[in-house]
């Protein structure tokens, strides 16, 4: 009997210990304005802005650390820490002027030294951090306390937008960190509207108001980022009022109708430069045949992809790689020819093209080219429902024109790192269902379609595609400082891209965010979705009076 009691007691102690182990000291509440943000990923890397680049945690690091400027989807650059910048063609120097108001949350000013230090560190650890400016910058010099000069080794028109991708850190905090790639930055000090307060891995991140914020302190006293791993729970929490803001509504298009009907919630879904397309491996016969690509394009079920796979949150694509939202650069004339036709008509037309080529359907319904190649291919995609469903739709439609597809699904890393791109890519694919979220500045197209040096990895050369004329135009456009001329070139490129059908665009996908409107009003002056929507959104949130 005594043994039994001892056993029970032992069990109870173990049980209580489990609790104690799990919980650290608790904070006691005060009346504060709290703003709760839902996020689907854990800030895995900690609070290190250099590493954050590689992760989705980028989304809340900018509440603490800010960039020089912010790029909006329509191609504008909003000055942020840097109030202005200019280019000296003679010396190939970009000079950035930092806003005088800008200061760190400990009160010290943000100086040119800090900027220089940040970029020097980023360049030094480029291998891990992957800094976009390193290749072009010869030297960084401090002009005066608030001005910093980047001396380039070649002309690069897109340099200011590239600079905006780096978050600036205070030199006086980071100068003796050592290897920044191994630093988790436990006590962040930044210039942003919020200061770090507490972080519980896989649970939440708490930030508090930076009273000294240079754009004026926020109305929000405390900002809590709750880690969710289930979009459905995220949405229900928003509707219940447990959460105020969902910065990214990716992949839950089906649920948005329900959310839009809620009076207290504002759903902001907007077009971005985000395109679904089918890429082709040009090494496979006879994918080099433009007429075949034409037929495949006609037969693609683009309307259904928009209405079903994207649940209506998408648009039929422009054929020149750019989405209409990038107003400054887009060539709106390169619309899809099939737009006005019924699907049946398009499929007939595609069949006609292939019949004219003399590629007959075999008894199994699969066409065979004149030199005997069977049109039987694999289409690879990531194991994400939207991708799989899209791939299946494409497969069903292409079957109707005698092209047989097998859908093969891989995880992201295997697919892109192991098969398509990457150091040891096997190039063992025929079609690739791909989605690219491109920054508005067209420079990235040059990097992707006309890489310098030509055989570097992670770009369209992985498709086996080559076209001297188009690639020359792209290369020129990178160095063209006259913006009007540059726009002309890019628009010309889009025409050629559409005509050549380098890839088969399927749809432009919308992206968006949602927030509650009952406690706060969004006084945000930018109505266009930006890559830093959380920062911009939160800075513009004012308490409802």
């Amino acid at each position: 009997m005594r043994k039994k009691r001892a056993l029970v007691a032992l069990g109870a102690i173990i049980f209580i210990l489990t609790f104690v182990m799990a919980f650290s000291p608790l904070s006691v509440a005060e009346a504060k304005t709290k703003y709760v943000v839902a996020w689907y990923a854990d800030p895995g890397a900690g609070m290190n802005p250099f590493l954050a680049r590689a992760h989705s945690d980028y989304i809340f690091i900018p509440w603490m650390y800010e960039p020089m400027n912010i790029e909006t989807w329509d191609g504008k650059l909003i000055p942020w820490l840097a109030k202005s910048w200019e280019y000296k063609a003679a010396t190939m120097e970009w000079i950035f002027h930092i806003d005088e108001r800008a200061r760190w949350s400990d009160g010290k000013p943000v100086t040119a030294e800090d900027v220089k230090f940040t970029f020097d560190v980023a360049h030094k650890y480029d291998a891990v951090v992957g800094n976009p400016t390193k290749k072009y910058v010869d030297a960084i010099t401090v002009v005066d306390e608030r001005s910093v000069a980047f001396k380039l080794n070649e002309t690069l028109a897109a340099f200011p937008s590239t600079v905006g991708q780096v978050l600036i850190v205070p030199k006086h905090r980071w100068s003796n960190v050592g290897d920044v790639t191994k630093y988790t930055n436990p006590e962040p000090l930044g210039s942003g509207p919020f200061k770090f307060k507490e972080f519980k891995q896989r649970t939440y991140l708490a930030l508090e108001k930076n009273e000294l914020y240079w754009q004026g302190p926020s109305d929000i006293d405390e900002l809590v980022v709750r880690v969710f791993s289930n979009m459905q729970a995220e949405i229900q929490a928003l509707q219940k009022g447990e959460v105020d803001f969902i910065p990214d509504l990716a992949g839950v298009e089906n649920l948005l109708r329900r959310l839009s009907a809620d009076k207290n919630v504002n759903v902001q879904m907007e077009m971005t430069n985000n395109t679904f397309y089918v890429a082709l491996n040009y090494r496979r016969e006879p994918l080099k045949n433009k007429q075949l690509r034409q037929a495949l394009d006609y037969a693609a079920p683009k309307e259904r992809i928009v209405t079903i796979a994207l649940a209506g949150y998408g648009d039929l694509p422009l054929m020149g790689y750019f989405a209409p939202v990038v107003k400054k650069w887009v060539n709106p004339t390169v619309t899809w020819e099939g737009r006005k036709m019924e699907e049946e008509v398009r499929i007939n037309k595609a069949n006609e093209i292939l019949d004219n080529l003399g590629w007959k359907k075999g008894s199994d319904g699969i066409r065979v080219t004149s030199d005997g190649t069977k049109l039987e291919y694999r289409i690879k995609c990531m194991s994400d429902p939207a991708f799989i469903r899209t791939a299946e739709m494409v497969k069903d439609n292409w079957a109707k024109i005698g092209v047989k597809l097998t859908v093969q699904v891989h995880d992201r890393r295997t697919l892109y790192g192991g098969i398509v791109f990457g150091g040891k890519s096997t190039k063992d694919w025929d079609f690739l269902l791909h989605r690219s979220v491109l920054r508005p500045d067209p420079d990235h197209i040059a990097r992707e379609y006309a890489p310098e040096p030509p055989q570097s990895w992670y770009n369209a050369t992985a498709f086996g595609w080559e076209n001297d004329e188009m690639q020359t135009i792209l290369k020129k456009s990178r160095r063209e400082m006259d913006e009007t001329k540059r726009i002309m070139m890019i628009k010309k490129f889009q025409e050629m891209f559409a005509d050549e059908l380098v890839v088969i665009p399927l749809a432009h996908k919308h992206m968006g965010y949602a927030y509650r409107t009952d406690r706060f009003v969004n006084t945000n002056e930018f109505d266009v979705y930006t890559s830093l929507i959380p920062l911009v959104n939160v800075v513009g949130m004012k308490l409802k009076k």
Partner: protein
Amino acid sequence: MSSRWLFRRLTSGVMVLFAAMIINFAIPRAMPGDPVDSFTSGVKLTAEARQAIVERFGLDKPLWVQFARYFVNTLKGDFGVSFYYFPKPVLNIMMQALPWTLLIVVSAMIFQVIIGYFLGVAAAWRVGTRFDSIIQTVSITVFSSPIFWVAMVFLYVFGFQLEWFPLGGNYTAGESYPNTFAFLLDVMKHAALPIATLAFSRFAVYQVLMRNTMVGVLREQYIVTAEAKGMGQFRVKHRHAARNAMLPMITFAGVSLTIQIGGSVFIETVFSYPGIGKLIFDSVISRDYPMLQGCFFLFSLLVIIGTIVVDFLYLFLDPRIKY
């Protein structure tokens, strides 16, 4: 308890751990293609970063050197650096997740044992009757239902439809609690559904076990004697018979730790509970191989500790047993 028994117990534990190590060591190296790809899972890497990985894991060295290095690192608790939580070490993240898993698994196990005990005793007492066969049928059906689906149904009904319980997480993130009690209440509220699901889906094993041993015990002479003496039914049932039938159940509780913690992968995934099961799922999604391997090793360790603890408990409970 002889030292020989202890020695045997420990050596077999060590052997299992060693096997887990070998598996962890071999899998990435047995994959076709460049081993570095297995270690980076094809993340885009510059030549320098690639070289760093080759050096870190000694991939250019002969296999036995690699293994020795790996072996020593594992013993030191160094399971490498997580891909996803880079540059944090795997161990760090696992240790934060472990208490939560133990909380729900241990609580659920207590409930399972209690439910299994009472249903098992009841069924054994009326063995062969309609009542018994109904309980058996229900047990088998529940046991054969996929645990994640049971979790989904619980979440759908009690979380989304009735809104009795929160939809996920371990406690309300960033909430300021007036006192510790309120906090514990919040934790219990979040843990309730996962515990209920786990308890519901796995009580059957204990029930069947309890019933079968109890049926055997009830046939024994001393029970008949006790009954003949006119001892109360309750006393015979719970004092005499059940006590002796408990032992197999306790052994099984230890063995089933494997299954239980395994089941937590599903439970925690459905309820977004940030324990080690969810960590495994997240690591599958992000192909965080070091984390996956670390979790596997940790599970192996837990299972071994579990079985050893049960052996001691057994010793404690049954005076007849001497190892």
